């Protein structure tokens, strides 16, 4: 009896834990009624900094967008680095929190990183940021991308061990 009860509790906990992982926020990002203005923090709260790195759907959407918006053109397929810096290692020039990554994408950085604010919808920038964190194993393993979209881009992010971020010095 005791064993059963424990199993039940474990199952419920697993279910609760999986809720956020499986959440697909399709509708609460969209309807903006006539004349309605919405605080950007609404999106951040609903689908941004706190939510995306714990949500498998967001991280895998980030993977799709990484190719769609040609991030892979500079940072390489799977973020392995090309004419832009690799995103899979532990070296971070501009901070390693998801907010820092968001700012890098939205506002751009020196030496070639363009600003995408206004060109990519806010929600999608958060998804991209979560995917970029996942490239160095810095989202929970149960959430990280387990199957790359393309062929031959190396091991999937879920196989990578978590990197400890350190600040990379750059001479500009």
């Amino acid at each position, binding site marked *: 009896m005791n064993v059963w009860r424990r199993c039940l509790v474990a199952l419920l906990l697993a279910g609760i834990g999986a809720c956020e992982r499986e959440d697909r926020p*399709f509708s609460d990002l969209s309807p903006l009624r006539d004349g309605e203005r919405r605080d950007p923090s609404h999106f951040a709260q609903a689908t941004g900094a706190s939510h995306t790195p714990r949500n498998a759907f967001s991280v895998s959407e980030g993977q799709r967008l990484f190719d769609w918006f040609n991030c892979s053109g500079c940072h390489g397929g799977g973020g392995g680095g090309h004419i832009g810096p690799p995103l899979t290692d532990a070296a971070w020039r501009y901070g390693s929190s998801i907010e820092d990554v968001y700012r890098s994408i939205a506002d751009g950085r020196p030496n070639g990183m363009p600003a995408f604010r206004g060109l990519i919808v806010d929600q999608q920038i958060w998804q991209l940021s979560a995917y970029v964190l996942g490239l160095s194993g810095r989202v929970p393993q149960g959430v990280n991308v387990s199957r790359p979209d393309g062929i031959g881009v190396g091991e999937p992010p879920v196989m990578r061990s978590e990197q400890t971020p350190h600040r990379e010095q750059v001479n500009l």
Partner: protein
Amino acid sequence: MIRASRAALGFLLAGCSWQQGALQPRAPKALAIARLGDFFFWIELVVWCAVVGAAIWAFSRAARRDRRGDEPLAAPSDSQQEHKLSRAVGASTVVSLLLLAVMLVASIATGRSLSDFGASPPVRIKVTAHQWWWTIEYLGRSPDERVVTANELYLPAGQPVELELTSADVIHSFWIPNLDGKHDLIPSHVVKTRMVAEKPGVYSGRCAEFCGYQHAHMDLLAVAVTPTQFEAWLAGQRQPGAEPRTETQRRGRELVEGEPCALCHNIAGTRALGGVGPDLTHFASRATLAAGSAPNDREALARWLRAPAALKPGAQMPAVPLSAADLAAVVDYLESLR
């Protein structure tokens, strides 16, 4: 006989729409498949009648014996009865095997005739399935003749075209039942086939392999027109997007170029050069929105732009926050792209 079998099947499927159906072939390949279906139908009908007839005969025989007060039927007692029974079972088995072999041969012969290609036709069309829409690309003889559109496949009636079918993400299936059988589309694998629509007309098709949340909203319209109309249509599609004529249309174009729209969609002749969403160069000439999710009119377009997730949950188009006036301007501009 063929007509009678179609009528019989038609009676069974009376509730279905007739615009799209494998029972109304409008192309040689669809006809071959429909003929095979007829052939199977008649064989199966005869077998079904024989089996059901035998069962009814056996039951009624038992009932008659019961009424007469005879002994109920028991297992065969002597070897002669047993011999008779096993002969009957053996004969039915042989007949079943023969019929199955005939059906197998007919099926293989039809399959072979479907993949029997002649000389390469001049019109080559590349169809790429996406979650949840179609890119239609007319390859032309040289790159300047290339035309890209979405969700509407224009065909010259009576002329064969070569189709190159593939998928950009997951496994889809290309199916226009009136014209051809299904073709499964595997990512990074190109399926080549021929298609010919005999007469002008509109034939609807769809994705026939479950491909995710909006699989049901992944329609494709095959529009067969006369070869002259087809050439005129192609020439029109090669033109860049219409220039805005009013002030709101101009404002709409500015917004499309400056807002996130331009990163995914292409409108030839503008700064919108994205390549991942449907090409919008001649958007207003298409009949539906979002692969058959809604008619392409101003009201539905405004609804779609304001909240794509409300019309087609899971669609990969995000909502772009726009004021009511800006939204009207974008709608105005897009609906001018004839």
